[in-house]
């Protein structure tokens, strides 16, 4: 944690944005490690893939498109900013005084809702990974909402920079700057990645289906799958990567994912349950839950992967 704090300050001070972005990546990685220590394996997984992976790539892309140096700005307003921050922090610290001590098992937080999940989800859902059960079933509606958030973002990015005429004409190799140069010529890298990428994609599929038992699930799978492609695009050529999955296709998958999720939810109606009730989908509630979660997780995976790919390529295509 202290390490994170250090990074935080470094980010605040550094002027070179590339360095800043890299540090942010490391920051999320450290956070991920921390999550593992704190038993939040799924979160760690996602944070690593999303925070350290996707956002970093996106930021690099943006820097390539804008400027990589932060101008030394006049710190006129920042004094007030400091005051504001200190005050907010003080209030928060004040708030902590009645918080349960760290890890205290007697805290209210662990005794109201959570135990139910831990005890009941075994019979009701029948999945060892409680997080998945809660995510996909008990609070499945939140997850639906979140899939729509990512959907919104993907469409939004398409809307905002999705049309070539808005990018200034530049050769796309500048996308990830010099880094890119070396990568494209580096034989070892190419060979390794050629071998690596299929593995990544396979791993993504594994994560997708394994999510019910161990850490993993739709998000992680989707993100990993996407990063596989992005890696390919970075090392080889964006155009070929694009031809493998044209914009149309990503867009279709984007929609199919959310439609699948919502569809499963609505199927609940016809089987006589409420929205997102999986128990009614099959003969026994448990198998119903299994089926439902499988389907929605797949939906999530589809949308997330499609969204990530689409966002990435929309940034990438700025140059053409």
């Amino acid at each position, binding site marked *: *944690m202290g390490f994170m*704090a250090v990074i*935080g300050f470094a*980010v605040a001070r550094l002027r070179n*944005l590339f360095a800043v972005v890299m540090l942010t990546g490391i920051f*999320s990685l450290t*956070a991920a490690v921390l999550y593992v220590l704190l*038993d*939040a*394996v*799924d*979160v760690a997984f996602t*944070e690593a893939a*999303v*925070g350290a992976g*996707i956002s970093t790539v996106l*930021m690099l892309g*943006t820097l390539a*498109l804008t*400027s990589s140096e*932060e*101008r030394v*700005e006049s710190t006129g307003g*920042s004094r007030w900013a*400091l005051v504001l*921050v200190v005050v*907010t922090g003080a209030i*928060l*610290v004040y708030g*902590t005084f009645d918080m349960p*001590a*760290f*890890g205290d*098992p007697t805290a209210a*937080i*662990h005794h109201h809702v*959570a135990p139910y*999940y*831990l005890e009941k989800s075994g019979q009701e859902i029948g999945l060892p*990974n*409680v*997080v998945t059960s*809660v995510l996909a079933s008990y*609070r499945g509606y*939140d997850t639906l909402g*979140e899939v729509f*958030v990512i959907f919104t*973002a*993907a469409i*939004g*990015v398409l809307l*905002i*920079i999705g049309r070539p005429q*808005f990018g200034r004409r530049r050769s796309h190799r500048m996308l990830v700057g010099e880094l890119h140069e070396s990568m494209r010529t580096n034989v070892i890298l190419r060979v390794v990645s050629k071998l690596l990428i299929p593995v990544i994609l396979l791993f993504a599929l594994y994560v997708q289906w394994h999510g019910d*038992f*161990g850490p993993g699930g739709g*998000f992680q799978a989707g993100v990993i799958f996407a990063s596989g492609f992005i890696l390919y695009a970075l090392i080889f050529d964006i155009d070929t990567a694009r031809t493998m999955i044209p914009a149309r296709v990503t867009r279709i998958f984007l929609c199919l994912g959310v439609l699948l999720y919502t569809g499963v939810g609505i199927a609940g109606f016809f089987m006589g349950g409420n929205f997102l009730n999986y128990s009614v989908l099959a003969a026994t509630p448990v198998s119903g839950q299994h089926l439902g979660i499988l389907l929605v997780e797949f939906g999530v995976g589809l949308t997330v992967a499609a969204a990530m790919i689409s966002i990435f390529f*929309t*940034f990438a295509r*700025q140059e053409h």
Partner: protein
Amino acid sequence: MEFLGLINYWIVIVLMMTGFYIVIAHDNLVKKIVGLNIFQVSVFVFYITMAKVEGGTAPILAEGITTYSNPLPHVLILTAIVVGVATTALGLALVVRIRDAYGTIEDDELENQEGES
């Protein structure tokens, strides 16, 4: 004794505030978004920290394990992370467009140009 139990929270707060400071104090639009990320990530850490149970394990049911950490915050944060990346993506897209339209990504320079236009 009690305070030892709170130290984690305090560090988290420091992290949050660093992020928050970057957002409001810096003029560079990308930097602002970086700050936003740090701010949010530290909030996630806050959630995960509160979920930890002394001597508990990851909430993946297995024989012989009785105490698990609290799964609900994990779920919430999974959601929040995705929301975060979505926001980041949108923000960056806007930054790119702003750069195209104004030729700068420094907030105060933008304000000057707005004043003129």
